């Protein structure tokens, strides 16, 4: 029995360090021989700090409750029911029960269970069994296993991993394996959590991949913004080296490369340019990196989650791994579920699970009790799937039919209080700034698209803008050099396709979702306001006034800067947006 403190970036931000200190102190004070270990994220990020003691998972743990929890387990204290989420597989907290019910944790099975800094702990939890099996099978056999599993790249494109490996191992030269953890999508944190929570599994996948393609160098590309992930993966590489893994059977030099955080470096040719010390500019393919990549050497680029899946395939065997998912898209997929849902966090579901299951059963619907509007899947390259299409199974092909893409796994849920034009503007603003500037259609095209959206969002748009959005989107999609700008119009195209009436409302300077600050006014509903004065205290420009006699407060729309602060603090929903 031990105390596992969820110490991913999410947990640490919520105060996991203080909780860990309190548990360590408590264990010492009670004279116990119980290890207190930091682990990766347990999954339900909305209940951080999470702590697992034996079979019981606790949420919202604060340092002052550490004593209660320790006493419940190691002395004769009463069980701490108010913080308990799960006891074994049994749900104590109904919400958390629903959060886990539809999930199938394959890649994340050790995340939150093992100490990510301790190789021996990883081995105790079945680590490196995949690697040992790969050694038994040999390079050919391991490749056959991945092929039989039908694993597809989890970075977004869904390219069959075995085919990529097959191309790489046939390419002549000194081969390189790159594991990319350059996760730049707004709202995505799968790779970070995996690198923080189970770095050895990613490295195990790299060992297997290197064995198959015959790579002599393995590079983990992580962005500088993920200091904890960098720290843990570096420590894990050091630990493997010390333990003599891999042995004489494979000569592989592993190292970490810190990316400077450019979104375009998620594109493999730009990533390779960045590895070579040049600007992160993509180049024309072919030649593909598997033929000519880093310094002209054959380079195989695989995503963090893909490699973690490889380790799982080899240790479980392809048939067992294939039990999850569909025929076209086998396996599971990790998603970072965020936005307007009650339960946010890291989830893993079998491919083919419907979006509705993910958003409503796991996520629990809108926290504001408003109907949902759409789910944004795939980040800036993806699109918005409206609620009407929530029964779409999550697999590579079905998502493309809705206009979205699988992407790397960011899933942002939006409710009725979201303006879809503003969402498109947000993503274009992102891609326009992240565009590397190499090709003119990408550089100028995204700029012009953003300008049209900005005009719409400020009520200055006209019908020509709407038409231009459609035609220019198509041109940018076709004409861009790489996937960044080529997929940048996706948020526009999907919102135009599914929410055209919102665009049309913006032509009349109306914003039905209430998201465009330039087109809305705030007011206080005098029949609902209870006079608590929270908004009065919140308002940064004193646009809200109170009358000592009347209960309801009043809002001066002229002074109001539309920051939305009053709406956020009003407990009664009395702030009207029109």
């Amino acid at each position, binding site marked *: 029995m031990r105390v596992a403190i969820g110490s991913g970036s999410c947990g640490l931000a919520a105060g996991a360090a203080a909780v860990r200190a309190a548990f360590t102190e408590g264990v010492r004070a009670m004279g116990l021989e119980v290890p207190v270990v930091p682990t990766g994220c347990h999954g339900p990020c909305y209940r951080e700090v999470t702590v697992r003691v034996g079979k019981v998972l606790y949420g919202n743990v604060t340092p002052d409750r550490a004593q209660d929890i320790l006493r419940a387990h190691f002395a004769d204290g009463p069980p701490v029911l108010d913080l308990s989420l799960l006891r074994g597989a049994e749900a104590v907290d109904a919400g958390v029960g629903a959060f886990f019910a539809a999930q199938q944790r394959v890649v994340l099975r050790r995340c939150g269970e093992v100490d990510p800094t301790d190789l021996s702990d990883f081995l105790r939890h079945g680590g490196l069994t995949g690697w040992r099996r790969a050694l038994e099978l040999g390079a050919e056999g391991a490749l056959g296993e991945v092929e039989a599993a039908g694993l597809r790249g989890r970075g977004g494109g869904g390219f069959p991993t075995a085919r990529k490996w097959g191309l790489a191992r046939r390419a002549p030269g000194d081969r390189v394996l790159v594991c990319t953890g350059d996760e730049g999508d707004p709202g995505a944190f799968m790779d970070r959590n995996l690198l923080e929570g189970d770095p050895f599994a990613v490295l195990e996948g790299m060992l297997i991949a290197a064995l198959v393609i015959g790579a002599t160098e393995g590079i983990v590309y992580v962005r500088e913004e993920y200091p904890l992930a960098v720290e843990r993966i570096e420590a894990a590489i050091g630990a493997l080296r010390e333990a003599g893994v891999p042995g004489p059977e494979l000569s592989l030099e592993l190292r970490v490369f810190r990316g400077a955080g450019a979104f375009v470096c998620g594109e493999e040719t730009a990533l390779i340019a960045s590895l070579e010390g040049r600007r992160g500019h993509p180049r024309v393919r072919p030649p593909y990196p598997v033929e000519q990549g880093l310094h002209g050497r054959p380079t195989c680029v695989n995503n963090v989650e893909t490699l973690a899946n490889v380790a799982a395939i080899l240790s479980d065997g392809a048939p067992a791994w294939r039990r999850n998912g569909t025929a076209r898209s086998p396996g599971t997929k990790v998603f970072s579920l965020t936005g307007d849902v009650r339960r946010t966090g890291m989830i893993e579901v079998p491919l083919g699970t419907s979006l509705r299951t993910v958003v409503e059963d796991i996520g629990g619907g809108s926290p504001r009790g408003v109907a949902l509007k759409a789910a944004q899947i795939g980040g800036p390259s993806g699109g918005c799937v409206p609620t009407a299409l929530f029964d779409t199974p999550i697999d590579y092909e079905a998502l493309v039919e809705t206009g979205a893409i699988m992407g790397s796994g960011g899933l942002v849920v939006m409710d009725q209080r979201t303006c879809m034009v503003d969402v498109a503007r947000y993503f274009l603003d992102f891609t326009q700034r992240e565009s590397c500037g190499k090709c003119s259609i990408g550089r100028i095209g995204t700029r012009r698209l953003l300008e049209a959206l900005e005009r719409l969002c400020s009520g200055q748009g006209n019908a020509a803008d709407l038409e231009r959005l459609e035609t220019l989107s198509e041109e940018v999609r076709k004409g861009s050099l790489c996937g960044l700008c080529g997929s940048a119009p996706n948020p526009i195209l999907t919102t135009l396709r599914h929410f055209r009436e919102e665009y049309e409302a913006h032509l009349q300077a109306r914003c039905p979702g209430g998201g465009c600050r330039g087109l809305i006014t705030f007011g206080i509903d*005098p*029949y*609902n*306001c*209870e*006079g*608590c*004065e*929270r908004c009065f*205290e919140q308002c940064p420009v004193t646009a809200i006034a109170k009358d000592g*006699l*009347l*209960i*309801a407060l009043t809002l001066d729309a002229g002074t109001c800067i539309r920051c939305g602060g009053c709406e956020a603090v009003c*407990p*009664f929903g009395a702030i009207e947006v029109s």
Partner: protein
Amino acid sequence: MAHTITADCTGCLACLRQCPTEAITGARDALHVITPALCVDCGVCGFVCADAAVLDAAGALVPRLPRDRRPRPIFDETLCNGCALCVEFCPFDCIEVLGPRYLGRAWLSEPMRCVSCSECELICIKGAVRMEPIPLRQLDPTAALARLRALAEAES
């Protein structure tokens, strides 16, 4: 007996401001407390509460009732004699009497200030006040006054 506030209270001050007997104490973002000796069990704090944190004297949760749907006093003009007891009792000065005392009629002159505490109904010795859930936005004091004026004129 008295109403009580549970730990679910987030300290928004709304109930404190609407309590007719000023029985509630508390500060911003701090747990509010009802002084039992002052509580008259009117339930307004429960109607107001967005946190579902108010229990009645029997310990049952008082459901939230938005201001628009709370009961407001309706004055029966055939029974009311304008004694003005309700005017004196109303903690929020919502009621006025048209005409001389004991010869006039009471009316809800400031519906926007009324918190639905039912004190007027309890104090009325004529049984002329009835609490009815009339939507706040349908209560028009100018129209009510005009009607009473017309009635008084017709009688004189």
